[in-house]
């Protein structure tokens, strides 16, 4: 197991290098000259030229890239063009908020999705199953910006149960997390259902019955553990989609997270912030994938890395 984790960790190194290259190249492709942007309107040619010299923009691309990476390794992501604050500092205040939102959403995705899937699978083609699956289909189909606004309207504006927006208490977490997690929960529910139905037909389930095991134990001990293997993959992928989703949800609920930071930075053409934000989001995704693979191996010891 330890070897598995070490090997898997080694595999993330080329991925991370790849991510830095992609982020760097994308920023080169963005139209507009950073020096012109930085110098502001009405700057003289000399000023721009001096800035260009200062930023190292005269250097060949690969030199610029190595400068970029070595700065990264020292924890330097540059400064925001908007307020001259270090980008890393900005990200560090925002990342925990987004992570919190993402983790609660994932919890909703997992708990709600799996419960619904199991309920459906126990009595397939029953009325309960049909209702759960129709709700799940709605969950997949509803766009989160609309769903978030509807939740806000009903539970905050009309019923006054949850605060409308912001990020101060646990109560603030509920609606955004639900908005973000609902789609994933629906996908996980459908996945759990089909996976359970597949597993329940297997010979080893019949063996368990022939041993005299109770139906409840068969579901939770024998079937679920096997059925979860594909579900874990889906949850991992959902987490990636979720990070993208935070951009919308943070905007709707006025949460100062990473997603909103990136959107604001794009709007202001604050390139260093965009670059840093995208890089950090990608790294989070790499880490999540790592965790998913380790979990996968825990559930299924047959997996080996070559």
């Amino acid at each position, binding site marked *: 197991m330890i070897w598995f984790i070490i090997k898997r960790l080694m595999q993330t190194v080329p991925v991370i290098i790849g991510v830095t290259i992609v982020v760097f190249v994308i920023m080169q492709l963005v139209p507009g000259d950073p020096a012109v942007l930085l110098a502001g309107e009405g700057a003289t040619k000399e000023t721009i030229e001096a800035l260009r010299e200062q930023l190292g923009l005269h250097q060949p691309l690969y030199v610029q890239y190595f400068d970029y990476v070595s700065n990264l390794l020292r924890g330097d992501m540059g400064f925001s063009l908007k307020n001259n604050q270090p980008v890393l500092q900005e990200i560090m205040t925002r990342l925990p908020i987004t992570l919190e939102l993402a983790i609660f959403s994932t919890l909703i995705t997992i708990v709600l999705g799996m419960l619904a899937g199991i309920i459906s699978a126990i009595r397939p083609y029953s009325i309960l199953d049909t209702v759960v699956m129709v709700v799940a289909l709605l969950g997949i189909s509803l766009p989160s910006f609309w769903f978030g606004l509807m939740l806000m309207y009903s539970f905050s504006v009309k019923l006054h149960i949850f605060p409308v927006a912001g990020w101060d208490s646990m109560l603030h977490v509920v609606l955004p997390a639900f908005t973000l997690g609902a789609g994933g929960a629906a996908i996980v529910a459908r996945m759990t259902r089909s996976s359970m139905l597949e597993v329940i037909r*297997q*010979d*080893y389930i*019949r*063996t*368990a*019955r*022939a*041993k*005299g*095991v*109770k139906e409840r134990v068969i579901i939770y001990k*024998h079937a679920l*553990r*096997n059925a979860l293997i594909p579900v874990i993959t889906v949850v991992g992928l959902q987490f990636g989609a979720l990070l993208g989703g935070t951009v919308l949800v943070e905007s709707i609920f006025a949460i100062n997270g990473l997603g909103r930071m990136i959107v604001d930075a794009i709007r202001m053409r604050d390139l260093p912030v965009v670059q840093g934000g995208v890089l950090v989001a990608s790294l989070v995704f790499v880490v999540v994938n790592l965790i998913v693979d380790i979990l996968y191996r825990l*559930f*299924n*010891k*047959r997996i080996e890395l070559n």
Partner: protein
Amino acid sequence: MSKEVILEVKNLQTHFTTKRGTSKAVDGIDFTLHKGETLGIVGESGCGKSITSLSILRLIPSPPGKIAGGEVLFKGRNLVELPESEMRKLRGNEISMIFQEPMTSLNPVLPVGEQIAEAIRLHQKLNKKEAAKKAVEMLRLVGIPSPEKRAKQEPFQLSGGMRQRVMIAMALSCNPEVLIADEPTTALDVTIQAQILRLMKELQERLGMGVILITHDLGVVAETCDKVAVMYAGNIVEHATTETLFETPLHPYTQGLLASLPKIDEDQEELYTIEGNVPSAFNMPSGCRFASRCPLATNLCREYKPELIEHESGSKVRCWVYSNKWQEQEVVV
């Protein structure tokens, strides 16, 4: 051999209801099993032998399957009418089962020791540690080397023969009185087959249980069984002691089966085959179910279904040839 009856199946009927209609997979089966005896049930794929065994333990997937009638008497109790909770206490404890596919019959994500211990903990008042110890003992009993180590392994780390031994260990862990083995050696290669059969025989003699061995392999029957029931299309067509069956097979189907075996002392270009196909389970003929393939069939066979009748050799056979009506008919013809 003691003559105490432990299991008696009377007119067992198991039906499957599907969109295409009702399939009478098992249509009125009778047999008895005595203590310490091995009963072979033979027949080709789809003749209902596996369904019969699953019906005894009420493991038929329902829906679409349903035990539509008959009795399964185990120590005086009718299992067909037993509440599910009582049935669970019996499964894996007093009656246990080994399945055909050792590769898929064990849970892939649980250590095999734990899977054996699960049955022990369910039926015997043992704690987790004692059950784990008993599981290791069972692995040793079925001849698995270094059982302590193996108990902690998962099925994918074991070979097919090894897994079948684990299945046997699991089935025998609570000292059942009846063991149902559904093609226990079909998926294994020939040398492993012999080992597994010898192991089952040994354990049967030691533990004194009754065994129902389901197979399509007449060689296995000849080697291990005391009695044989030959099934065809959901019915028993012949029921005899193994010796009698091989010496004087009565039913044309049994005769055909035996004739189609390759013979060691003859140089055969082609093996004998029984012409035709088994009738569809959804559309059984009203007469004898073998009539369409039987070289002896007459109108009597095609129109009326024969009963299982006793023959002078002591065998029971479901064929008009051995009834009084056969002679009468020939006079008419």
